[in-house]
């Protein structure tokens, strides 16, 4: 199973994580710590109700850039493997947008790598959000929140 998944349809983040972990590690007991972040679409942003969202990306560069982040995380911390999944296309509130996950022997490396992946993804992965508001008007999100 690939370390980077770009999905056009809704997914259950926990099923996807379980599937990756099982495919990657089976019954291996080499990792002791797993850190996971999931980002979920809220129905509220900058004071407005958001009905839906369209996520545009740069196919090809997206996958390459996310793989670069995983390679960098592995070089910085003692992580065994990482996983990133990201939605694109039409997204509704309460649907999962992003997963970042890291498996390591020890928890500090797992936490650091997981956090690094989501922070760097928000900073450098070529995704763009367009929100549809209550009155059906649309607007591009112009910057990500600091955290």
């Amino acid at each position, binding site marked *: 199973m690939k370390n980077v998944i770009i999905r056009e349809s809704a997914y259950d983040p926990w099923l996807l994580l379980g599937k990756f972990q099982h495919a990657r590690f089976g019954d291996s007991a080499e990792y002791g710590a797993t850190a996971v972040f999931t980002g979920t679409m809220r129905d509220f942003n900058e004071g407005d109700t958001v009905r839906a969202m369209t996520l545009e990306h740069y196919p090809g*560069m997206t996958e390459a850039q996310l793989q670069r982040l995983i390679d960098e995380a592995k070089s910085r911390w003692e992580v065994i493997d990482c996983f990133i999944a990201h939605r694109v296309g039409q997204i509704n509130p309460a649907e999962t947008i992003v997963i970042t996950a890291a498996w390591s022997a020890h928890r500090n490396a797992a936490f650091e790598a997981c956090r690094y992946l989501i922070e760097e993804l928000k900073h450098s992965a070529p995704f763009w959000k367009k929100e549809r508001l209550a009155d059906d008007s649309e607007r591009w999100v112009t910057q990500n929140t600091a955290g």
Partner: protein
Amino acid sequence: MITIRYFASLREQLGKEQERIEPAGAMTALDAWKSANDGRMPPDNVLVAINQSYASLDAAVNAGDEVAFFPPVTGG
């Protein structure tokens, strides 16, 4: 030929998604933009990728390259 791609709000503002230009001698990404956009400057916050890796506006582009311009990213 050099392929130029535009994404997100920049794509909408320019009303174009992709175009091709002839390389004119030694060109930078900025030269490619100006050549494709009547000599105008790109927005201050524009991001540039050459062959799907981030690059600066003064990076060299060559025949066969794909140059992309886009606004700050907002994924995650």
